[in-house]
């Protein structure tokens, strides 16, 4: 870009072009979605096996979440190098998922103390849907919007079972809401990189 003085009209065009370009920037590798999607899928499926006594588990499968949390932090730090800009959408995503995480923690800890039983699971599906739907709306990413709605539908369905089958429904919810969109994000991500390489 040369250092020239622009006319007022050209200045306006330059500004709006740059803003449009910046608005279109996003960095989403789909890694978090896949990570948490698979973790939930595995945990709840294992919990189901444990409940129907197919095999006994030496520890609570949900402790795997702790490992996933550490992995998430590790991947975040690695990805930070490639993330060239932090947008307002990124900020919004962080808020929404943080509030979600806090709510889930309150639910599981409080629910455990109060010993409320299987109702935790439909409520969990309700909570799963919230950040997924909002994220989808913000990014205009339809798979997330549909995933959120799917979680809510599964929530309603799970009310008619009220047994350990609900574990499978939650696993399915995690799959639909996070794993499938996660793969879609990943495909887009690689296509983006390929496009950038071809352009250079």
């Amino acid at each position, binding site marked *: 870009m040369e*250092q020239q003085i622009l006319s007022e009209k050209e200045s306006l065009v330059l500004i709006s072009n*740059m803003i449009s370009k*910046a608005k279109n920037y996003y960095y989403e590798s789909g890694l978090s979605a896949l990570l948490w999607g698979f973790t939930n899928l595995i945990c709840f499926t294992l919990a189901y096996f444990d409940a129907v006594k197919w095999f006994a588990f030496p520890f609570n499968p949900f402790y795997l979440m702790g490992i996933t949390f550490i992995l998430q932090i590790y991947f975040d730090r690695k990805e930070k190098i490639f993330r*060239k*800009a932090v947008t307002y959408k990124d900020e919004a995503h962080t808020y929404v998922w943080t509030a979600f995480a806090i709510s889930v923690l309150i639910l599981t800890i409080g629910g455990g103390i109060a010993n409320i039983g299987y109702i935790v699971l439909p409520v969990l599906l309700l909570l799963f849907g919230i950040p997924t739907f909002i994220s989808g709306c913000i990014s205009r990413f339809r798979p997330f919007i549909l995933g959120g709605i799917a979680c809510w539908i599964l929530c309603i369905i799970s009310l008619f079972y009220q047994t350990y089958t609900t574990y499978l429904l939650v696993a399915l919810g995690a799959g639909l809401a996070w794993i499938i969109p996660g793969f879609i994000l990943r495909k887009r991500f690689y296509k983006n990189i390929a496009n950038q390489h071809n352009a250079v």
Partner: protein
Amino acid sequence: MQFKELDPILHSQLRLAVMSLLISVKEAEFSFLKEQTNATSGNLSVQISKLKEAGYIDITKQFNNNYPQTICKITPAGIEAFENYVKALQTYMNL
């Protein structure tokens, strides 16, 4: 209609482009600015320094896993200057 004065710091192509980019994001890395403006590293460095001197942007140099990064962020003064510039443009264009 009275014409408002255009801020000379902003009234320059590359600096204006950089400010426009930085007002659209929370923060951006040097390489992002370079890609979007198609400027050379040297020229971009110079212009960013001028913007920093004027107090319009903040620059943070950090290392991420031994990888150097230069993070730029617009300041409240920068936002105000940008807004005034746009308002001044409007007086010239009868908008």
